[in-house]
């Protein structure tokens, strides 16, 4: 059909990026409260250039996760991020749906 899938699977893409020699981070929703856009277990994968596939929200917090992922790729140290309307940066990266989510960001490799 096509050389590249129309709708790539995030974990498959992460494996391909790593095989290409790129630094890769995997972000995973580990906990949700209230109305969260993506269920626990959802993945967003990010490479060292800031390319990404998948999602951990409805597009509300991905930008912030990508910034953190760059640091995780450099340092190799995993971190847990939390987003919600009560967050100090809510005006910028909060969840407009009113839910709260925790995201685990780790380096692949």
């Amino acid at each position, binding site marked *: *059909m*096509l050389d590249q*899938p*129309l*709708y790539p699977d995030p*974990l*498959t893409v*992460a*494996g391909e990026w*790593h095989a290409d020699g790129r630094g890769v981070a*995997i972000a*995973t929703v*580990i*906990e949700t409260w209230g109305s969260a856009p993506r*269920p*626990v*277990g959802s993945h967003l994968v990010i490479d060292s250039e800031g390319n990404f596939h998948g999602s951990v929200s409805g597009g509300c917090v991905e930008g912030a996760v990508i910034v953190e992922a760059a640091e995780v790729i450099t340092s190799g140290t*995993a971190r*847990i991020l939390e987003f919600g309307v009560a967050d100090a940066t809510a005006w910028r990266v909060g969840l407009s749906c009113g839910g709260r989510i925790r995201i*685990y960001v*780790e380096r*692949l*490799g």
Partner: protein
Amino acid sequence: MLVGHLQRLNAARGARLATVTITELDTGTTRLFHEGEPHDPSVAQSIESALRTGKSGIVEIGGQAAFVNVYLPPPRIVVIGAVHISQALAIMADIAGFDLSIIDPRSAFATQERFGQTKLVAEWPEDALRHTPLDAYTALVAVTHDPKIDDFPLAQALEAGCFYVGALGSRKTHARRVERLMKLGVDENRIAHIHAPIGLDIRASNPAEIAVAILADIILTLRTRDVTAGRGTKE
């Protein structure tokens, strides 16, 4: 996560093998477990619960918080008929995360040239379903219009408790199909589970729109089915 773990996880997902990862949130150490393997007693209960419910979440293991992520194989769609509707449905089902395959004994229809990377079986359903039987996690979509090809897999799907059984054709065509299936000895209450005319009524008027209607019908049935009945079907 180690690259080796990701490779094993992706291989298992490709092979439809249910898999669980457990990540210690303090240390970042991840372990990976497959369905059907004997498991370390300290985590066996968390693994079994995740496999049974399909729910991921945080658990306590040895006094430490750990994240359990479960990867279950996606539901299957078996299409009888390598027709124009199936070409559109194959692409849409892939995007929606279903594992779709097509059975059609007419080798002029079931060609890789028409279907790209879609799994095709150019055999009679009687033979094809012998090596890959239907089950409660499978939707059966019969779209050949030909009773010689459609009737057997429809009866099999009702017998196997497929969560969705749909057949293309008008109400008149379906009335004749019901008569034939009853002659084959299929129970009338089971026959009533067939979605016919197939698909949600969205006034679909071409093959791609019919594929949208079929896929929406399958999703609605999947998400509203009675999982306690043990038979996959809603009623």
